[in-house]
């Protein structure tokens, strides 16, 4: 990653972090109902991947989707609005925290059935290849979902048809409470690439420069027509699986180890070391991004009462027009 991109990366990562922090606060205040899956600690994975993509490249994120959605360019206002269930939301309030599709920003939205978004992303790639596009689609999944049959079937399909898919495994060590050490048959998910005659690689998912570089290389490989690629990034969600998780399955020592590897703090140190910003400029940037997310959430809260009527919602069960 070119040093000139470090501050851009930090900006995206701060937005993602502050979005999650604000979301947690709003849940605690009882202003949002349902559940949410926070990705604190995974910001380097989200920003590094999305910065390596071009316009027209599609993503299909996981249920832990906020950071990817922000990094692909969606408006935090529309995302907060979605969680408030308001008609200003990305899905008009019909999706919620796990469903934030945004056609304008090449984001199909997540499947809340872990691993089921992967065949959809493979289908997007099928179309791209058919249309002769230079674009690619990214099938994002976690270590937990890596055991789904749908993913293995998709990898085989993508390989035999040389489809432009980046299989992107965001390994945060746990599928809910289940440790990938116990649930995955190979030391690294990327080891499975060879079974499908794909190239694969595992990198440090808490280092945005490593993620960006690996994702850029993978994208170049895919765009050259060589077929799919499996990239695994090793990261950690510092919060629980969802808001009801008491985290009984992991130790305080393990959490402390990973908190010390915080991707944002790592990047800040790098920026200071390289002299890209001084401490004052860095502090100002942090304040600016925090305020931006604060303002977006406040704006969304103002319109939180604007909702679709039940009839308007029912009207969306079926698409109206036919060819």
């Amino acid at each position, binding site marked *: 990653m070119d040093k000139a991109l470090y501050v851009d990366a930090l900006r995206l990562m701060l937005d993602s972090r502050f979005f999650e922090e604000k979301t947690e606060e709003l849940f605690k205040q009882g202003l949002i109902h349902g559940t949410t899956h926070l990705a604190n600690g995974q910001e380097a994975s989200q920003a590094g991947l999305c910065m390596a993509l071009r316009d027209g490249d599609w993503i299909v994120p996981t249920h832990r989707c906020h950071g990817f959605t922000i990094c692909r360019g969606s408006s935090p206002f529309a995302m907060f609005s979605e969680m408030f269930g308001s008609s200003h939301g990305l899905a008009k309030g019909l999706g919620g925290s796990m469903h934030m599709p945004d056609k304008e920003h090449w984001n199909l939205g997540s499947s809340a059935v872990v691993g*089921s978004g992967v065949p959809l992303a493979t*289908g*997007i790639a099928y179309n791209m290849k058919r249309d002769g596009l230079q674009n690619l689609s990214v099938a994002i999944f976690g270590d937990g979902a890596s055991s789904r049959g749908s993913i293995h079937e998709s990898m*085989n*399909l993508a390989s035999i048809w040389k489809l432009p898919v980046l299989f992107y495994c965001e390994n945060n060590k746990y599928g809910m409470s289940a440790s990938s050490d116990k649930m995955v048959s190979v030391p690294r998910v990327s080891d499975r690439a060879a079974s499908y005659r794909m190239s694969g690689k595992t990198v440090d998912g808490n280092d945005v420069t490593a993620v960006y570089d690996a994702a850029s290389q993978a994208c170049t490989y895919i765009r050259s027509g060589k077929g799919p690629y499996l990239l695994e990034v090793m990261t950690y969600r510092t919060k629980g699986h969802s808001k009801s998780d008491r985290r009984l399955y992991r130790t305080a020592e393990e959490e402390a180890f990973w908190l010390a590897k915080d991707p944002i703090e790592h990047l800040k140190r790098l920026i200071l070391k390289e002299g890209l910003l001084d401490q004052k400029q860095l502090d100002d940037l942090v304040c600016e991004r925090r305020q931006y997310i604060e303002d977006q959430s406040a704006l969304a809260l103002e319109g939180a009462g604007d909702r679709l009527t039940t009839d308007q919602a029912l009207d969306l069960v*079926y698409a109206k027009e036919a060819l």
Partner: protein
Amino acid sequence: MTFREAIRKALADSMAKDKNVVLFGEDVGVYGGCFKVTEGLVNRFPDQVIDTPVSEEGFTGMAVGAAMMGLRPVVEIMYADFFTLVFDPIVNHAAKTHFMSGGQFCCPIVVRLPEGSGTGHGAQHTQSPEALFMNEPGIKMVAPSNPSDAYNLLVSAIKDNNPVLFFEHKLLYPAEGEIKEENVPIGKAKIVREGSDLTIYSYSHATVTALETADLLQKEGISACVVDLRTLKPLDREMIHRTARATGRVVMIQDPSPAGSVGSEVISAISTDRETFSKLKAQPVLIGGKQSHTPFSKELEKNTIPNALQCAETIKEKLL
């Protein structure tokens, strides 16, 4: 033209007209499909007829994603029984995407499902699973009984912007009939035989049974109207009520067992409508298959679905 050829023609005409219509399935290419429905299509449309590996969930999910991007995939599931493998992409994704995206995406996919018993294939190759989807919003279901409807309804299904399950009863494949190319919209039933004493509702293969039943009744001077539902979801409720009110005696004949089925929905619609109910002269009758898996043994297999003789007897006993 046979029912099989009518489906092939609908696929061919649709693919010729629109390059985005692409057929995916196991052995649909050179082999011509398990039931020879797609025979020869790969020669005419090599880029639109795609043989897949045995990965129903994978390739159907792939087709769903492609449909959300504007492709018009037609997926052949070799036997409708294998739908269990594609529940997730169809029910959790194709059916919900328009709603869950606030209308940003639609999913114009057709899933072709050869179904039904009578072929000696045992319990995992003979089911008629349409009842499983009656309560699933966001999808449509079509089950034609003759070549002309098969042609026109498949053309309509491919043009539809929603996921459509297209049920093809395997015993109908060799059935002959003339094709009348016309617009048959999804959601419209059809009176296939006029009659004044009672109304029989049916769909797919059971419509053949219903027409035979009407013939038997006619010999005894009883005049039965036969309504072919054609579309199972959304049901043509207007036609159902109109024809029920006209005769005041209603019977539903279907191959699957009655519990939670298309027939129980038809009878429910009739019984819960004040005006239609008030016009009934007898209780509604629902004749369906046995609540059983399909036995292999030929005689036993035959006995799991209703036949015309039994239907005529039941109607005389209960309705007249």
